[in-house]
């Protein structure tokens, strides 16, 4: 199976291990991620803060390019890209006036979009298209004994729901359980990590990040599995600030769910780029790699 893939800016550098591990895992699942040619930035949450329609226009160019490739579905790994593209697509399909304006913009650039694309996130594709039974078939080294807090973050299921609950998603829990790992109870799983504000005004949002790490530690988690480059950044990069704020010594490794999947499927650390995170994961993941 081949799927059109929208990588997004973050996974080129900051979250490159997400891109690498996602591709490696998909290959194991007999699925090839084919990159959308000449994709542009979706605008994330930031472009929208300055211009609304233009931001949707940028996002719509990607949708038009995807249709030109003849695709019915496009998969993303970054929840911010996912929700930005999804939102433009959703408004396009449900609001004729909006669609008309977007098409006028695209026409000026010699492009067109018919609204026929479906935007999907990789977790949805893995669970609902590939199927967890297929995942289980390929498990070589079950992650027995590993306690994982699955952190979904906000944009995986909000605001549109789509494939899981907006308030208490469980899709990452299901994937992680299928790898043989133990999923700890993590009630803050869909609470925000501060998003981009943590990067601009970390002093104000550190309490939010601290709450997430403390809850994971209290639940007995060895590591936190995430599906979002920004969640990874905020929980990993800002742990020293959290330690200063709480006066604790938190050192919880943050890993992408695709890295855990890869480990269970017998892929090596190098193939999954484990070790690029700032809070080292050796102690926790060493015995599985």
């Amino acid at each position, binding site marked *: 199976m081949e799927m059109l893939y929208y990588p997004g*800016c*973050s996974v*080129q*550098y*900051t*979250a*490159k291990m997400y891109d690498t591990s996602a591709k490696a895992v998909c290959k194991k699942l007999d699925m090839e991620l084919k990159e959308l040619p*000449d*994709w*542009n*930035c979706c*605008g*994330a949450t*930031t*472009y*929208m*803060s*300055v*211009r*609304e*329609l*233009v931001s949707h*226009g*940028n996002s*719509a*160019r990607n949708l038009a*390019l995807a249709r030109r490739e003849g695709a019915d579905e496009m998969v993303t790994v970054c929840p911010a890209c996912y*929700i930005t593209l999804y939102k433009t697509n959703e*408004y396009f399909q*449900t*609001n004729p006036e*909006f669609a008309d*304006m977007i098409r*006028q*913009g695209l*026409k*000026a*650039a010699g492009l067109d979009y018919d609204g026929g694309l479906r935007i999907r996130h990789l977790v949805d594709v893995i669970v609902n298209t590939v199927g967890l039974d297929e995942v289980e078939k390929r498990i070589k080294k079950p992650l027995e004994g590993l306690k994982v807090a699955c952190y979904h973050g*906000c*944009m995986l299921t*909000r*605001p549109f729901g789509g494939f899981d609950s*907006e*308030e208490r998603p469980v899709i990452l829990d299901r994937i992680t359980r299928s790898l043989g790992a133990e999923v700890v109870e993590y009630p803050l799983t869909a609470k*925000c*990590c*501060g*998003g*981009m*504000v943590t*990067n*601009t*005004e*970390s002093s*104000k*949002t550190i*309490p*939010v990040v601290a709450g997430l790490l403390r809850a994971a530690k209290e639940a007995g988690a060895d590591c936190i599995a995430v599906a979002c480059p920004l969640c990874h950044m905020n929980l990993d*990069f800002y742990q020293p600030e959290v330690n200063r704020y709480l006066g604790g010594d938190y050192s919880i490794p943050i890993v992408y769910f695709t890295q855990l999947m890869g480990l269970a499927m017998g892929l090596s650390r190098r193939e999954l780029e484990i070790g690029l995170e*700032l809070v080292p994961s050796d102690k926790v993941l060493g015995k599985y790699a």
Partner: protein
Amino acid sequence: MPRSELRTKTRKQKLSPEELSDTFLSHVYALPDGRKLDLCIQCGTCSGSCPTAYAMDYSPREIFAALRAGMLDRVLFSNTAWMCTSCYICTVRCPQQIKITDIMYELKRLGIKYGYTSPSTRSAAMARIFINITNRLGRNNESELMMRFYMAGRWGDAIKNAWRGAKMFFKGRLPMPIGGREVAGLSEMRKIREVLERLEEQKAAEEVKH
């Protein structure tokens, strides 16, 4: 790069509080489902759900109250909209189905457009730099984004994050801060931008007439 571009507080066209409320309403009404704004019952579910309400000068519910009281300028000059992380929990929970996150975005846009952004917030500066980079390259360059953000007088953060930033750079997780790969369809993006900027203004102008 001119420093003025990075200043969060730029005095542009000054609007009276009434004009400001009208402009805000016309822009919000122009959004998909924007008219639902009128249905707010002041229940406070948004404020109670917001993960960053504790750091806001005015909570989300108070925005709607301020709008009705003709005091929107106070909200715009506060940090409220810029503390919104866009997590959509308010939008999902609002019993009147008001798209509160979209309205927060509108407040940010108005603040930037009319120079009302709070001087205490830094996210507006970040947004301007981000737009500048993505318009120029078609994609974001995270190193350039953070460097330009720090260089605009946030040396404390730069020093605090330098060691971890360097670690990321040597792990190959940060690009070179200058240049970066350009998207081939940059001219396409520019054309789309020109048309949609014009349409956006037109649509808001029509809403004012209504």
